[in-house]
């Protein structure tokens, strides 16, 4: 059975219904990333789990222990839930030293002083902060404060840690490093991590499982990173998870044609059955799913090429629209770099088909 279960959680703030009948499960010892646009209710869900916000309805279980149930009138207070949390703004207490911050959860459990000291040293070693044990948070950088927050969360609970946008306030390089460290800590300790973010890249980087929410607070897909990237269930997920190109497809007689504004080009691929009868489609591709092929009948003009080290980023004029194409440096070495201003043929791999948005019809 799942380790953490949200069952039919509903929360509203006044007239604003944030979550409605929301259900989600986490397996033990995995990192679950909950991804969704800002304001979709992710943080509200976390607050319900921690006992900081009271849901209107629903049930929450951790490891078969009921933390909240509107039906059975159970509501375990925040301090007795035993869940570790890392907040976006760290929430490291500025008047306590690193040691006092990290020891706080165990002091509240009335542990023996020697035990606390030993665990504090262990945990600080985990997050490579041993040398800062007597520093005040004001003397630490943002990344170091974040490690203190993680250490403190580990002291609250070995089993379940919630991280609410923990790396958003860090700079790009440090973000990658922190993600790797979180991953390592999780591997070492087997902790279950519930990671909340609006940043799909971080989620793909870190998560064993990804749960995607839309702006209405609905769960739209759960799956591994591969599932989400290769088999997005909806146009929302497809667009949300990365840079996308959309090109309209118009049904003409028995086949489809690419609508490039000035001209229509027959679409060489076959369209899956479930969308076959729709008159106006949109074909979506990711920049790295487009390759240059001189034999292709789809012709376009290279407007700009940008070299980014590991890849080339192209802005390409296709009919009346501009699309993005990415080419790995290895491919570029094999096939050759497309020069700005030259004409190229395009081939689309792994296309996704969605019904066209109404305003474009």
């Amino acid at each position, binding site marked *: 059975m799942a380790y953490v279960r949200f069952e039919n959680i509903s929360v509203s703030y006044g007239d604003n219904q944030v979550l409605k009948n929301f259900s989600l499960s986490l397996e033990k010892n995995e990192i679950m990333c909950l991804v969704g646009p800002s304001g979709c209710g992710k943080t509200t869900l976390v607050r319900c789990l921690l006992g900081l916000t009271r849901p209107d309805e629903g049930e929450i279980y951790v490891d078969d222990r009921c933390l909240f149930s509107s039906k059975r009138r159970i509501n375990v207070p925040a301090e007795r839930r035993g869940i570790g949390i890392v907040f976006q703004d760290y*929430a490291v207490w500025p008047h306590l030293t690193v040691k006092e911050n990290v020891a706080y959860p165990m002091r509240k459990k009335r542990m023996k002083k020697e035990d606390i000291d030993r665990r504090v040293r262990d945990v600080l070693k985990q997050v490579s902060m041993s040398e800062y044990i007597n520093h005040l948070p004001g003397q630490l950088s943002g990344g170091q404060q974040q490690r203190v927050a993680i250490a403190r969360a580990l002291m609250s609970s070995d089993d379940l840690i919630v991280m609410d946008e923990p790396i958003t306030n860090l700079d790009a390089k440090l973000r990658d490093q922190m993600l790797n460290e979180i991953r390592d800590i999780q591997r070492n300790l087997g902790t279950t991590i519930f990671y909340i973010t609006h940043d799909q890249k971080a989620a793909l980087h870190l998560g064993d499982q990804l749960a995607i929410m839309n702006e209405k607070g609905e769960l739209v897909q759960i799956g591994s990173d591969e599932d989400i990237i290769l088999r997005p269930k909806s146009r929302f997920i497809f667009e949300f998870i990365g840079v996308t190109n959309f090109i309209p497809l118009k049904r003409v007689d028995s086949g489809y044609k690419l609508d490039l504004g000035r001209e229509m080009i027959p679409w060489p691929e076959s369209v899956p059955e479930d969308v076959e009868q729709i008159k106006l489609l949109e074909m979506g591709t990711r920049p790295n799913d487009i390759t240059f092929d001189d034999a292709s009948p789809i012709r376009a003009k290279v407007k700009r090429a940008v070299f980014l080290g590991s890849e080339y980023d192209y802005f390409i004029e296709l009919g009346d629209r501009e699309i993005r194409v990415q080419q790995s440096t290895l491919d570029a070495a094999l096939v050759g770099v497309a020069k700005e201003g030259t004409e190229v043929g395009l081939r689309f791999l792994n296309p996704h088909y969605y019904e066209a948005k109404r305003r474009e019809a």
Partner: protein
Amino acid sequence: MINLRRNKDLAAVEGRRIGLDSIMTVLAFVLLLVIVVIPISMIIYNAFFFEGKFTFGLIVDQLTRSTTMSSMWNTVKIGGLVTLFGTIVGVFYAWLLGRSNIPGKKLMRSLFTIPYMFPPFLGAMAWDLLLNGRSGYLNRWLMQTFNLSSAPLNINTVWGIVFVEISYYFPFVFMQVVSALERMDPTLEESARIAGAKQGTVIRTITLPLVVPAISAGALLILISSLAHFGVPAILGFSQGIFTLPTRIFAVISRSGGSFEGIRQAAALSILLVIVVALALLLQRKVLSSGGYDIIKGKSMRPTLINLRGARIPLFIVALVTLVVIVIVPLVMIFLVGLVRAYGLPLRPENFTLANYARIFTTSGTVDSIKNSLVLAISAGVISMVLGTLIAYVVQKIKPKGTGVLEILSVLPYSIPGTVLAIGVILAWSGSLRVNLYNTLWIILVAYIARYLSFSMKTSSAALLQVHPSLEEAARTCGATHTESLKDITLPLIRPAMISGFFLIFLPAMREVTTSVLLYGPYTRTLGVQIYSLRDAGMMPQAAALGSVAIVLIIVINAIVNAITADRKGV
């Protein structure tokens, strides 16, 4: 909106019907009811109800007296003039010390804030000693030297009162504007220079408009303080029959010898004073209405200084003379008169004695007054600090229904003149509600708490706003109960603000005279009241000696406070 709800949810999540939050909320409302609402309601009731019936009679009766009308007119005239000139003086020196290359800036800046600590009624005493129309030292010297038949200067006039009040109230504007000028983003002015504006144009079109919010905040403080001010007009005006509303109220009470009729008249006059203050506030809001700008940055930056060139030394001398006149002269005068053997003797070394100072510590009444003031100031400081923080927590973090009411109630007494508050406290706590505190220290304490509550409430509020809710929530998830998270996290974080809130109350309470002069009993004289009565009894040198002791006390305590708060900067 989510933030708004968060803490309400915390209380609900607690799972108990009566949580700590609801206890604190109820306590805050009850305390403000007792401390603020009851005295104010008693004034309104006694001014408008006679033998249980509503009547405008009392107010109309007061309004038809010429004495009332002249006191009202004096109050408005003095308040308006002090605000106008105090603001001009404050802005001028703020700009001079904040933005020009005048020498000795740092020292002058701390000297310019001295009048802020100095009790104005002592200043009035000093100027009375110097420029009294009949017996002022300076007047006598001028008359002798130039063979004049009458005194050339007379401080016992409306303009004299205005002059003394300006010298103590301009720091309100000065300090607000100096700090705004210092924290202003210098690129705002630099951009204007780059866009081609001359120095003068920049000051006129950029700098001044940007500090208008600071100026109007300071001017508002001057206006409220001056309209409600008692000490200076009491000392300079009584002998010449110049009354303002606060001094008129005092006169009515003391003439009636505590009869109920006198107190009712005072209540009616109090209503008039409150109306004058309220109208002044409305008018000021109309005149100086301006949106807030977000130009002030929290960080301190190095603003561009303006080279005064040839005017540098003359302006320096002007500033120096101002300082000597408003700070040094009254101070020296009080100390010297405290030394003379008998009032009226020339200030020469052969007439000096330390007997006046010695007598302070041998006269039981005087020693008691120092003790009383210390006890009152410390208790009012501690109690208001605790209550103010409690109310601030309820307002900032719990946000129950009626938060707005709570906020208004706690800052209301600050805009109500101390004299009026004293009348309210007399009406409420001298037996009419079955509680009689009259002639005890308690009645003064209750008045002090009402008067100074807003100080600590404001500083604690500001500090609590800095404490992000996630800090307390993190403690909750770490296993701390609501009470523990308050004790371990929130209180330690706002402790420095609470301490500075204490001293913000302690210092003015030490030198307070306006409220206690109406509330003291035979054994409950405060330091301010004792100085006032010694002077009233003609014992000028003794009053001056006690005044200098008060000044030394205040300066010493202030120095200690500064040392403590400087240490705490890191927190």
